[in-house]
């Protein structure tokens, strides 16, 4: 188990401030990431939770500056060890990606080049950032495979992706992520592609790797179980905004935003063996990207919404202990259950 690090005890490796990413299409332009701020220290794990369309994946890709052509960062800053990478050149970004900020993509089945051996794909990451000979890089790749619990790593390094199971590919992608011991590692939906019994294995592996390398981990997920298991802090996203962020225990005990609270109740009910027949649910559907109104994006589905919520967007305010922030005019108080 990772030792929880209290927020802001160490100088942050990553500070994101007022990040705004917009996406254009035929139907208009909308902010997929809308004024997001957070910071992250070495060894810390931040969970970014949200449902589909909340902008969580776009936030991850913004941090790597790997956005699709139609999307771009319009304002804000991403400071890595104090250096704002929003202003970095393409060549500078290339040196940062993989070496300082690395990604473990969502779907391991389609994230490896089908035409190259697994070992080569790990070794080329090493060679892109370090002056090592091909043979040396290959033996380091084998070592990395061993570290992510791949049996017979020498043999497996020579295999092609299609010769491996989903769980094994997931670990290969993990090995690529930690290859150059980055400062920040972004794991995009680390468990969705996996079977239940393998999920737990993989999360344990991620935690072990974090302990060994001291990397700051960002876990993008829709699953509160993943958050509860491995995160130190959580940011809940809705319609491109972080509506609430807090230390993980605090968020589960006293969610202040009606959306976080409803989500936590819904997923806790799913996980609860007892309980009545009915599941607590949230009425309605998330808003579309284009044509979001003026006010709080959650207002149409919120049981507590008042006129003001529909008129103006709530700013981020403090909700109690250090590090608990919420975007709501009428934050909730008290226990979730």
């Amino acid at each position: 188990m990772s030792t929880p690090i209290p927020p802001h005890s160490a100088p942050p490796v990553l500070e994101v401030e007022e990040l705004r990413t917009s996406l254009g299409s035929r139907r208009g332009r909308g902010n997929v990431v809308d004024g997001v701020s957070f910071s992250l220290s070495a060894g810390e794990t931040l969970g970014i939770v949200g449902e589909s369309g909340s902008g969580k994946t776009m936030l991850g890709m913004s941090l790597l500056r790997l956005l699709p052509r139609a999307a771009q960062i319009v304002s804000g800053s991403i400071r890595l060890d104090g250096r704002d990478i929003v202003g970095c050149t393409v060549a500078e970004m290339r040196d940062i990606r993989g070496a300082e900020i690395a990604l473990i993509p969502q779907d391991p089945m389609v994230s490896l080049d089908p035409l190259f051996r697994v070992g080569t794909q790990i070794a080329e990451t090493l060679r892109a950032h370090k002056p090592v000979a091909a043979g040396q890089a290959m033996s380091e790749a084998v070592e990395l495979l061993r570290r992510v619990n791949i049996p017979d790593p020498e043999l497996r390094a020579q295999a092609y992706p299609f010769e491996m199971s989903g769980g094994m590919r997931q670990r290969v992608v993990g090995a690529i992520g930690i290859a150059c011991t980055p400062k920040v590692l972004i794991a995009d939906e680390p468990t969705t592609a996996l079977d239940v019994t393998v999920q737990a294995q993989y999360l344990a592996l991620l935690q072990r790797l974090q302990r060994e390398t001291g990397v700051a981990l960002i876990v993008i997920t829709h699953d509160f179980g993943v958050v509860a298991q491995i995160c130190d802090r959580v940011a809940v996203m809705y319609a491109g905004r972080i509506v609430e962020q807090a230390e993980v225990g605090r968020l589960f005990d006293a969610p202040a935003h009606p959306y976080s609270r409803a989500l936590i109740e819904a997923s806790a009910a799913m996980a609860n063996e007892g309980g009545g027949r009915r599941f607590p649910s949230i009425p309605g559907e998330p808003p579309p990207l284009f044509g979001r109104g003026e006010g709080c994006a959650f207002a149409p589905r919120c049981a507590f919404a008042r006129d003001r919520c529909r008129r103006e967007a709530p700013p981020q305010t403090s909700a109690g202990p250090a590090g608990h922030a919420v975007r709501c005019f009428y934050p909730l108080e008290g226990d979730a259950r």
Partner: protein
Amino acid sequence: MTTASPTRPLLELKGLGRHLTLARAPFSREATRTVSILDNVNLAIAENETVGLVGESGSGKTTTARIILRLDSPSSGQVLFSGEDVGRLDGRALKSYRRNVQPVFQDPYSSLNPRLSVATIVGEPLFVSGEFAKAERRARVLQALNAVGLQADALGRYPHEFSGGQRQRIAIARALTLQPRLLILDEPVSALDISIRAQVMNLLDELQQRMRMSYLLISHDLDLVVRVADRVEVMYLGTIVESGPTRSIAKERRHPYTRALFDSKLPAHPRERRAIAPIEGELASPLNRPRGCPFHPRCAMATERCRVEAPPLRADAAGHATACHMVEI
């Protein structure tokens, strides 16, 4: 929750098996192989009962559903519906079986034909049955749409105009039109967001109470099945390894695999966070199904006997059955 009635079950699977013969590719040196996907599966669903079928990929749960729906045929064993052998039905009897047993599938995007209007999609079972006049079809379609919380204005619209949750409602409405007695729910909410999942599960529960249907709920999500089902069947590599009343299974977790499934559950609250003791080994696939007990390579308790002899499924007096040499009945 209702308890299983002592009378004849609505649907019964008896010794169901499904083998695939992997054709040898021409000029390949590999020998022809037979792969066992289902092996001696027995299962019963009573009136108005919900039976949950849990398993990971390769467990054979989807094949079981396909066989019940007559999308696939078993290599051995039978499916009995109200005591009749489903494999032998044809003509009118098959028609009547089809109207009694309807599926809802996982992917709401693939379930609805993008080129057809909602009226046509929902009305198809009625149209195909050929027993209803146009006006009655329309009335029944409207009734089904209302039952899932959709309005008449949905009729002329096309699937792409609806969100995932709404599409799943449309798929459920379609299944309801012929007033079936059994719904096969194959991962009905796994493709949906958490907030929408709850909506759909509540809807299914409400419909079951109102229409007195039986459900076969197939899912990889142990939490969901345990929460909803009256009985649970745990499948691993094509066999049922544990079966019984939900409460008893959740409490006792006799089979090591069931236990592993429960132990792999992610916590609902960070305070329940624990050092995960994951089961070892790779998830096996039907292609390299181990001899003996299929779970033995990943089982901490496995003995020599488990490696050679497949354990039979043995039930106790309360109807809680386990397939494990290490479990005393």
